[in-house]
């Protein structure tokens, strides 16, 4: 019990850290995922190959390895001394973007054929077809898988805690290093994560209902 009360400021910082790294990296994943999904269905072959390669590579790389790459290789390429928060959210965002891309692509596939055909027959270009006609309709089917992708992202953010980010796993590690019993620590961290994941799934359910009314 007093694990939480004695160390509440650290726990609060960890909680906020988890929320913020989740928020930033889900934004990165969303933007990148949609762009790569656009690449994967585009009429330009090299972009298609790039999209496929991106997804295959990211999906078959363990996230921990990606973190290692971002913490040891990327600073050498860009500039040294980037903050662990930036590097962590980039790694998480890149990894998750491949899942977002696949979700968006299968969403595009569920839009009825006639829609794109109609768009083309009134002379829309590829970009117009995608932006004005197909993607808005795909949004509805993409939302449920996106919800589980973002929940997975929240859970994966624990790995960032092992790479010197202040978040909930970092707190768990700190507490067990301080010699507290692991069971109550585990329970509190679990509750912290459950709050975040339930909030995300609640938000997405709300969004889903909104979208349904619009139809």
């Amino acid at each position: 019990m007093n694990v939480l009360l004695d160390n509440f400021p650290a726990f609060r910082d960890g909680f906020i850290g988890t929320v913020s790294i989740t928020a930033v990296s889900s934004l990165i994943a969303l933007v990148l995922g949609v762009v790569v999904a656009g690449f994967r269905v585009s009429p330009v072959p090299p972009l298609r190959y790039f999209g496929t390669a991106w997804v295959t590579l990211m999906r078959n790389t363990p996230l921990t390895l990606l973190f290692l790459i971002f913490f040891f290789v990327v600073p050498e390429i860009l500039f040294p001394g980037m903050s662990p928060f930036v590097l962590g959210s980039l790694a998480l965002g890149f990894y998750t973007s491949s899942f977002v891309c696949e979700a968006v692509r299968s969403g595009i596939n569920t839009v009825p054929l006639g829609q794109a055909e109609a768009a083309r027959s009134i002379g829309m270009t590829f970009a117009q077809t995608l932006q004005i006609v197909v993607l808005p309709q795909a949004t509805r089917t993409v939302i449920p898988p996106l919800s589980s992708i973002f929940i997975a992202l929240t859970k994966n953010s624990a790995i960032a805690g092992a790479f010197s980010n202040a978040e909930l796993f970092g707190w768990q590690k700190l507490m067990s290093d301080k010699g507290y019993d692991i069971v109550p620590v585990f329970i509190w961290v679990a509750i912290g994560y459950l709050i975040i994941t339930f909030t995300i799934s609640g938000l997405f359910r709300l969004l889903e209902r909104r979208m349904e009314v619009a139809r």
Partner: protein
Amino acid sequence: MSASVLYDAPGPKAVVRNRIYAVVGSLAIVVLIAVSIMRLADKGHLAPEMWDIFNYAGIRQNIADAVLATLKAFGLAAVGSLVLGVLLAVGRLSDHKPIRWVATTFIELFRSLPLLITIYAIWVGFLTDYSMWALAAGLSVYNGCVQAEVLRAGINSVPKGQSEAAYALGMSKTQVMTTVLMPQAIRSMLPTIISQLVVTLKDTSLGFIILYPELLQTARLIASNTQVNGQYPYVSTIVVIGTIYIAMCLLLSALATWIEKRGRRAKTGIKVAPGVQTADIPTVEDIPGPRAGGAGGAGPTVDGGAGAGVTKD
């Protein structure tokens, strides 16, 4: 909808434009890669000495041991998660309420917690000196929950007539489950099960954090204990280890795809679900379960919704 529906067959103008995009796009990617390589080379990460360390027998032995350690943890976790998955799936479909509740609570709880938290708690709390067992236990618990959901989706997708017929023959509940439902469920869900095993294989890399000497931990040890030209060979080690990881995962993914294709060819039985590697927590809803298309299975496998305008309007 195949991609080609989104754009017209290109005319002469569009062909030129697409070529320009192609060239610009490829150039951008090539330049990006080239700049990265040059920056790395500038800092001496691509010097031959950096890569020479992999010629030493000691380091090769280290890497071989690490691959073995990873595979050992993966094997234990795979067996553990499949056994636990079957038990939990059967438990969740049980006729007895308490068993159902226990199984449901267990699945929902551990599926919604970060795997790392579970592994770390098991390691610190119970198996401090046995990091391999801690890793395998954590992976088994988490992936067992996921496999249980996959199996449950498979069992639910077996046409109802199958179990009704089995009961009509006088089979017991256990017999129906083991001889009728399970085999069909496993067959149809095999690609998804294997995709989840790929996730399990990837997640063995979390052993890094509990200091289990698997591939990634070994990579870190090699890189931080060897000094070449006054630098630590992080880049070369990560490239080598990363290639090994990606190769292992791709092999396993290829197996899933192969089984899926093979299943499509078969003309009998229920359909084989595509092997989706979801973002670590496939729920029953987003596993594209095989539609219960009884014998014949003739219905063309409609990928996504090419079935024209009848999609979920």
